[in-house]
């Protein structure tokens, strides 16, 4: 049987409309053989987690450039836990100040990719860290 493709949800929480990065990453992951679902803009934590559950994803990539990460990411992590989705690999990218990173890692964001990251680095990271499922 063919190996299940890695399923990734690229999600845009926050009010900003900067989707260049999210879309470039979505396309690069798709070109790397993953199944990618993109939420579209301005999704609430509830909407993101509901989509992740429904689409049965292995990875969630959060893209945010508005500065609201400290308010929105904890809520997303909390909801994932509530739904028993602790095994989903959650990564993030965007404009996120260095000083916020320790807090975000503590709540369970596995990695934060900052400006200048290549799409290959993200692909490699996902392949290495995703929890393999049957």
């Amino acid at each position, binding site marked *: 049987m063919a190996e299940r493709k890695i399923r990734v949800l690229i999600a845009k929480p*926050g009010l900003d409309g900067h*989707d260049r990065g999210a879309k*470039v990453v979505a*396309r690069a992951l798709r070109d790397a053989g993953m199944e990618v679902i*993109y939420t579209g803009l301005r999704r609430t934590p509830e909407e993101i987690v509901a989509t992740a559950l429904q689409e049965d994803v292995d990875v969630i990539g959060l893209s945010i450039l508005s500065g*609201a990460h400290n*308010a*929105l990411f904890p809520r997303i992590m909390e909801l994932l836990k509530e739904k028993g989705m602790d095994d989903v690999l959650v990564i993030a990218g965007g404009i996120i100040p260095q000083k916020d990173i320790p807090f975000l890692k503590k709540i369970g964001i596995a990695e934060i990719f900052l400006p*200048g990251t290549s799409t*290959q680095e993200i692909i490699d990271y996902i392949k290495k860290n995703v929890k393999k499922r049957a």
Partner: protein
Amino acid sequence: MFSEKELEKIRKRKEKWENGTYSESLKKLPERMEKFTTVSGREIGKLYTPLDLENLDYLKDLGFPGEYPFTRGIHPTMYRSRLWTMRQFSGFGTAEDTNRRYKYLLSQGQTGLSVAFHLPTLMGVDSDHPLAQGEIGKCGVAVDSLADMEILFDGIPLDKITTSMTINAPAAVLWAMYIAVAEKQGVSPKVISGTIQNDILKEYLAQKTFIFPPEPSMKLTIDTFEYGAKEVPRWNTISISGYHIREAGATAVQELAFTIRDGIEYVEWAIKRGLNVDDFAPRLSFFFNAHNDFFEEIAKFRAARKMWAKIMKERFNAKNPRSWWLRFHTQTSGVSLMAQQPYNNIIRVTIQALAAILGGTQSLHTNSLDETYALPSEEAVTIALRTQQILAHESGVANTIDPLGGSYFIEKLTLEIEKEAWDYIKKIDDMGGMVKAIEAGFPQKEIQDSAYWYQKAVERKEKIIVGVNEFRAEKEEEIPILYIDESVAKKQLERLKEVKKMRNKALVKQCLSDLKKAAQDEENLMPYILKAVKAYATLGEIIDSLKEIYGEYQEPITY
């Protein structure tokens, strides 16, 4: 510009040079790259000569500054009489915080204001809305009602300063607030001057801070044209923007073409409303990006002026020469700034700003070195402003008009870019216009493809970015950044609560219901919005009322 005889002589000599001097040299010293391309992927030749300008007609294609087709500049004297306006886009935290920054910038020699609103304001939601959580004062200044706007411009004489406001979907509301503040200062709407961005089409293409579907959005925009022409005659009621289109990944040609085509769309809709083109066209303004590729950007600005003049004169039969002017603001490219070795950004900004000046911009924002991290600190924004002042007063570039005019390379590039932009415009015309093209997802797809191509080019090192994919630092230096803490949100929410308590509730209710009725009856909404803001109806309340009539736009998801 050269006689046939002269060209023939040059052609022969060039062939000789190519086969002799040049080829000989190539054998010993091959070129560094197989292909030389701009940041937009345009191939650049090794040498430009009069042969590239065989079909250039000086009087027809270039002419003189202040005269049709304005390729060399819209004003007869350009910077010899008046420098460009130095206008730093600025806003953060509460209205008090930003008001202090404005006063500081003005004291440092800045000559105009430019307001950055926080995201909830851009999206037409109040600070107490659930979607505003975590966003208050982060990306700009928080404005919920007239009360915030009064503080924002406190002590700033609106009859003397011109103000640009980056606001789109809810532009009419923020403009109404500005008019109301001016009136409270005793300044008539007839004399205030400035710009609202008010360019909704590029929101669907690029920046994505849309609220309503395209049709009612266009209606609101045309309302402001109509109202402005009568009541606020010195106001630029739109800034047709390529900036965000470029930032989203477009090439220089796509930026130019989509922006100009957006401009055509607004003019068509306004004429359809029954407006006379010369009544509103002189108040249309533009906003472009100054990206890294120096010559390509200069050529883009020159081509833009020429194209718009032609469109207004020939396509729309405008008679007033002011209707032919493409007046534009420029901002240096945000996406070109790098988080790595951030001090290098000062150099990038300088080169981009120079391109804008050599391209004949009317006003300029120079980005600050720290803007990949956050809104700029006071130190960083001061360097950005000083960059403009050094270019203006020390470099000598403002001494003559269109200094690069006549360069074989620049003129050739200007012609090439113009031609490619016309091709796009034709394509969109054939699709039935920009609203139709947006609905079909055409420009969005073009932009996405360019963004992806560029990312791949960087990853393959076909494009070198200093400090990122080459010349990296062992250890990155940390720079001080502006950090907006949660006390801003607390203050803002308190003020909003206070405003809601103090105002005449019955009056607010009446204003909002009148507004809804006017929207249903397809009246010009400006007078109703003005009345509502004066009664301290909040931005969110006004926008929610309109959402009831117009609905909300849902973007088709593509990637």
